[in-house]
């Protein structure tokens, strides 16, 4: 699905990613954890093609295609979805218009006809129910005047509507109370399938109680310094990031 090799990237001239490697296969859920400033959000934005982030080296292959050569919209059409850490407001455009446009653009790219109005409505009702979103939230302008929790929920709603191949969740848990966390996680689990993959970027272990990962990676100073199974997240929670940092330092000094 996704193969990242020696990825290097800068933000405003500062090196953030310094040779990152990651392999994600279909059906897998990978959690990427790490302290502040380790490059987690940079990784998410680089993969999505945000122009504010400059790739300075390495390669990314997504579904046998060179991802880094594609425009952001084509990456999305190929099936890469980013759930934003800070979802953006688009005043005056309703959630449903926005989603319908997005779905049709993706379908057009794949050579499919536009979605039928009825099919779209049925799909929207079904997915909204999973996330406990009412009609009001769907007819309102995209994220405009939404609370932090509603915005995050809307991101996962979009994820279910667009049903991409790879979902990257950038700190989707931040700002969520425990109930909202459960609903949002439930939505992500709904998305999980043998064919889809998820990359969960998070600070905290608590999200991983609900979205149980197959792999956990620790990102530190722009590199993955430790990988393991879901128990690694618990160990991190217990011992803190200093534990891996120190072991990394020990490893480096040998």
């Amino acid at each position, binding site marked *: 699905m996704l193969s990242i090799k020696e990825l290097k990237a800068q933000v405003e001239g500062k090196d953030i990613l310094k040779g990152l490697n990651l392999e994600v296969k279909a059906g897998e859920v990978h959690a990427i954890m790490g302290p502040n400033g380790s490059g987690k959000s940079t990784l998410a934005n680089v993969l999505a093609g945000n122009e504010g982030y400059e790739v300075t080296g390495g390669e990314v292959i997504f579904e046998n295609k060179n991802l880094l050569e594609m425009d952001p919209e084509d990456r999305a059409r190929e099936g890469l979805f980013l759930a934003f850490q800070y979802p953006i407001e688009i005043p005056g455009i309703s959630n449903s218009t926005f989603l319908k446009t997005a779905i049709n653009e993706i379908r057009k790219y794949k050579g499919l006809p536009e979605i039928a109005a009825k099919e779209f409505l049925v799909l929207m009702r079904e997915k909204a129910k999973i996330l406990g979103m009412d009609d009001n939230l769907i007819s309102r302008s995209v994220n405009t005047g939404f609370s932090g929790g509603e915005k995050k929920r809307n991101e996962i709603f979009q994820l279910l509507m*667009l049903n991409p191949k790879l979902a990257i969740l950038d700190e989707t848990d931040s700002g969520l109370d425990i109930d909202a966390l459960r609903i949002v996680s439930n939505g992500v689990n709904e998305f999980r399938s043998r064919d889809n993959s998820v990359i969960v970027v998070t600070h905290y272990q608590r999200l991983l109680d609900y979205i149980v990962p197959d792999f956990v990676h620790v990102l530190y100073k722009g590199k993955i310094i430790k990988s393991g199974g879901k128990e690694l997240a618990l160990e991190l929670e217990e011992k803190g990031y200093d534990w891996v940092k120190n072991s990394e330092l020990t490893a480096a000094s040998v």
Partner: protein
Amino acid sequence: MSDDMKVVEDLTQSEYKWGFTTNIEADEAPKGLNENIIRFISAKKNEPEWMTQWRLKAYRHWLTMEEPKWPKVKYDPIDYQDVKYYSAPKKKPELDSMDEVDPELLKTFEKLGIPLEEQKRLAGVAVDAVFDSVSVATTFRETLHEKGIIFCSISEAIREHPELIKKYMGSVVPYTDNYFAALNSAVFTDGSFVYIPKGVRCPMELSTYFRINAMETGQFERTLIIADEGSYVSYLEGCTAPMRDENQLHAAVVELVTLDNAEIKYSTVQNWYPGNKEGKGGIYNFVTKRGICRGKNSKISWTQVETGSAITWKYPSCILQGENSIGEFYSVAVTNNYQQADTGTKMIHIGKNSKSTIVSKGISAGRSDNSYRGLVKVLKSAEGARNFSQCDSMLMGDKCGAHTFPYIEVDNDSAMVEHEATTSKVGEDQIFYLNQRGISTEDAVNMIVNGFCKEVFNELPMEFAVEAQKLLAISLEGSVG
């Protein structure tokens, strides 16, 4: 059938047909402006003497006036002696097939989604294609006639309905009003006249489009709409097709009058030639539009979408004289490249409990300048008057300008006046967000802009709103990314 034939004849024969007999055979006045030219125009229009005198008075007054310098627009001085003030409606060069039409024009037609037959008509290809719209127009006229609605050119109204013209023309915008209104009063050549009788609700949206005898927008247009007691009309001005117009200077006057319990809804979509990307050419659009809510509970609503012209100077206004009368102004003004717009409204509250709403959306891109200028004036008599104004500006890129000049004058303590203003930029983050959902940058910008203008588009008649959205997309093409 005979009606249809006559209409087609009117359309295809451009010669002047009101038997004007002087030595001047030409269909064009020579360049320049003087009393003889005005008499010439008046005679060409076969006007009664009182009209000629009215024009002359306006001209004499114009001579004493000075061009306004206060708008935030820049242009080289206009030589008013270098303008032709009259030429008979020109027959467009007729083309044999669509292959001969300017490809750029065709591209725009396509983007606007104009049907092929309609494209032919607009581009001036072959005649038989016209039949459809002609027969529609004829049926349309009959329906109006049954209801007693008068809808004709202003020249026809001057000849056929002098009592209404004498009573109302210049009653809202007197020729002394301003420089361009005075000029228009002296030299206006055509425009529309509408009268809706008492208690009649006009069953369809009126549009110059259907007033087949005046397809060409005049350089000095004059429009007068009267809604008698308890009547209603929705009037659409303009055509969203990309009409090429060589006239540099346009100075129109529009007057609206509503009597007790009457309502006029006036919608404009204006997309005249804005000049090229370097700012060469383009129309100067200096318009005076004003309505008076003369009767109690009457209402006038202006909705405009302005994307064209090199310079726009335009303030559709309402005089709220009647008790409980309502004035509304909904505006989208888009400027790109080197366009300049200074536009807004005036709401003059005279009647008790009169209410007004102003929603203005300015979008600037390229190196353009976009100003909102508005006045809310509450007179002593306007007990309980209310106004709400909202002026939002959106900037695209960093070389354009947006300005807001709101003036508020209140002479009655019971009045409530609210003003809100915002300025925003089309954000990279917004575009990226939409990109990330599979939407291209161009479509993303259109979406953001349309969302920004939504409150105004909601006021437009459905079909017009769809076209306005497309028009916006064309105007802003290539302005981001």
